[in-house]
């Protein structure tokens, strides 16, 4: 338990803590750039330099262990000048077209330059290569803006277990990217966008599709509708300076109407449909396994997260059959809108333009998948991220903060409370289990029957067992059966579950996988400051508000909703390629 002094503040820290940890405990801020709490501490960028009494050189506080009796100074002339030089050198090799950069105003490098008082860049000279990669539907990369902090490398390999990105070549030729600086579409990238979420600058971003939406809105022949994911309403406010997690559902609806959308709907509507379909599919698979003694793929994995589906296709193609054949809520919505809703309003599918607002870059990729056209045309035309919607609202000159509240449209704008927990890790499974339990027993799932516990020694994987009692006659074969379920978030954790199943260490019936750590709620890019504090804290701050909206709106169980009964089910299923499982 070393005790040290930082800027005359005494602080005691646990053994193994760094000077940066100690300074945070003491409430003293040290700027960082390449550092990510619990993910990456490599001392590469040198922005966190501090002066330690008796040490010959300045030290990087993110990697320097705190020592007993150390005297640290974080704000001396030497420190200030060194930090300034470090950032000036980064800027000298950075394509600084700030006025036209989509991260302007939300860029960590820009913020640091301002914070450190940099007025000119005194190191002109050679610059690195400029390679633009827009090969994928989800992401664009610009190597000239990259500052080689390696945060994307760390999340891609450690959190997601994908490893699509790594430093290539050396010196000014060096770029962060796939093998031999090829494009992302040539490698096993799952398009989850975690790299874009942690990029401090504009080097990796979501593909900007705002202009496509403007073009549709300007086209008088198109009936343009929008669906919004639950995670958006707690995040959009941040684009307009509201505190993280502020719920802005009503203002968002108003803004969307002012942008010119003909109708505003809720993706939760089809999230309910997903729950119904997925719960039923699980029961059908269990029946086949337990009663008919057929060979059936168990465990069943959830299918809502397109990054996860791509991950399986790349890394575990042998378990494709295990993934639920349900479409994700986004794609179900597109299919329902262009069939059921189109018929209701008397329009042809090709005259309807479906925009979805999602917290996720992989959803852009999902909408472009070749099989996502069950309405005869592309089911979802354009996917915008939260930040793109924020930019659109700004482009329209709408005073977001002072907008009145408005309500979503019927019939695709209402949902049960169950769908609201969808965006959090564990949410899909909980909602599907509630539904399945009610189908089987005719009763609501008692809260005490579902204890989802972390597995010892496995971070990011949780499991639970549910014993079914009091089954109704039609499902009596499930009486006394214990259903084992697991929840994984972050793809490296999903890999652990798959490997546990393969080795026989675990025997699950149903597994929920969300591509991003924490689930969709944390996928959207938090403001730059969140990463310096650590993603976990950011998640804590957003979570209560994301959960807060879980109040019974129409009905708690999706199956008891009056409106959902009329929706055709054939739109709900996705194809596994190959073989096709199209029909319900």
């Amino acid at each position, binding site marked *: 338990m070393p005790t040290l002094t930082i800027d005359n503040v005494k602080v005691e820290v646990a053994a193994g803590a760094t000077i940066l940890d100690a300074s945070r405990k003491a409430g003293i801020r040290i700027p960082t750039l390449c550092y990510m709490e619990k993910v990456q501490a490599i001392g590469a960028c040198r922005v966190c330099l501090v002066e330690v009494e008796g040490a010959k050189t300045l030290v990087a506080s993110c990697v320097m262990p705190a020592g007993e009796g150390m005297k640290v100074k974080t704000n001396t002339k030497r420190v200030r000048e060194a930090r300034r030089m470090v950032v000036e050198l980064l800027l000298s090799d950075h394509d600084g077209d700030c006025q036209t950069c989509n991260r302007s105003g939300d860029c960590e490098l820009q913020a640091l330059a301002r914070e450190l008082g940099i007025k000119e860049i005194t190191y002109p000279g050679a610059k690195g290569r400029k390679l633009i990669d827009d090969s994928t539907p989800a992401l664009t990369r610009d190597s000239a803006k990259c500052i080689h902090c390696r945060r994307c490398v760390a999340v891609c390999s450690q959190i997601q277990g994908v*490893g699509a990105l790594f*430093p*290539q070549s050396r010196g000014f030729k060096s770029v962060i990217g*796939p*093998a031999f600086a090829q494009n992302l579409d040539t490698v096993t990238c799952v398009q989850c966008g975690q790299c874009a979420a942690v990029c401090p600058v504009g080097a990796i971003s979501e593909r900007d599709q705002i202009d496509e939406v403007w073009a549709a809105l300007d086209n008088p022949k198109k009936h343009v509708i929008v669906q919004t994911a639950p995670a958006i309403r707690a995040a959009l406010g941040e684009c307009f300076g509201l505190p993280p997690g502020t719920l802005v559902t009503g203002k968002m609806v108003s803004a969307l109407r002012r942008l010119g959308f003909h109708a505003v709907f809720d993706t939760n509507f089809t999230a309910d449909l997903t729950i119904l379909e997925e719960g039923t599919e699980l029961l059908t698979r269990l029946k086949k396994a337990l009663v008919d003694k057929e060979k059936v793929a168990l465990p069943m994995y959830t299918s809502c997260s397109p990054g996860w589906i791509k991950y399986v296709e790349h890394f575990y193609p042998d378990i494709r059959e295990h993934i639920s054949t349900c479409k994700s809520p986004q794609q179900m919505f597109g299919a329902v809108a262009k069939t059921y809703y189109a018929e209701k309003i008397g329009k042809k599918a090709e005259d309807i333009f479906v925009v979805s607002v999602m917290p996720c870059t992989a959803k852009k990729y999902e909408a472009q998948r070749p099989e996502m056209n069950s309405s005869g045309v592309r089911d979802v035309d354009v996917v915008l991220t939260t930040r793109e919607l924020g930019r659109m609202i700004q482009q329209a000159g709408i005073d977001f903060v002072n907008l009145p509240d408005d309500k979503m449209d019927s019939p695709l704008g209402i949902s049960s409370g169950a769908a609201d927990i969808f965006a959090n890790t564990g949410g899909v499974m909980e909602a599907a289990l509630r539904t399945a339990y009610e189908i089987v027993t005719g009763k609501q799932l008692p809260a005490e029957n579902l204890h989802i516990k972390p597995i010892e020694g496995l971070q990011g994987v949780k499991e639970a067992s549910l014993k079914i009692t009091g089954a109704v006659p039609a499902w009596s074969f499930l009486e006394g059966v214990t259903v084992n379920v697991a929840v994984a978030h972050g793809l490296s954790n999903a890999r652990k579950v798959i490997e546990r199943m393969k080795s026989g260490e675990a025997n699950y019936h149903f597994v929920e996988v969300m591509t991003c750590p924490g689930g969709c709620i944390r996928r959207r890019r938090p403001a730059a400051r969140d990463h310096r504090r650590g993603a976990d804290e950011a998640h804590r701050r957003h979570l209560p508000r994301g959960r807060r909206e879980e109040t019974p709106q129409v009905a708690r169980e999706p199956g008891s909703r009056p409106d959902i009964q009329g929706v055709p089910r054939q739109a709900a299923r996705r194809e596994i390629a190959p073989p096709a499982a199209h029909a319900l």
Partner: protein
Amino acid sequence: MAVENACACGEKLSEEELLAKLDEVLLEYKDKPGALIPVLQIAQGMLGYLPETALKRIALGLNKPYSEVAGVVSFYAFFSTSPRGKNVIRVCLGTACYVRGGKNVLDALKHQLKIDVGETTKDHLFSLEVARCFGACGLAPTIAINDKVYKRVRPTKVGEILEQYKEAAKQGEAHG
């Protein structure tokens, strides 16, 4: 690193046989920490260069992302992903050689061979690389062709040096 691209009888192995040998190496190194660079060196020793097929095998064999394997290969000048010529010319651009005109020697070689650094001539006779110091600074500027070091090389003399190798290749063909 004792693996050579020939078996005891002196016959050349096919690429397929060499890759099978690489698999044996991978099995041996699979669980060793820091195995990537030694394995790459062995593979290049066996194959002469590092083709994509070998690199992908190495990534799978050592359970590492392909991006990481490629990153290491592209970081070190020693590794080559294209087939190298019969004779590898390395021009020293260390401080002493640079000061005494190593750059001019390099330019002369580029001009004569009509290739850039890292490339191989169309007849596969020469590859051109740069190096940092052979430990013969007193004899600067130096170049090395395969294992032979040439001292106090002048740009006007590189043609003569190359000629010896062209001649040797012709004779080799005549005899072979």
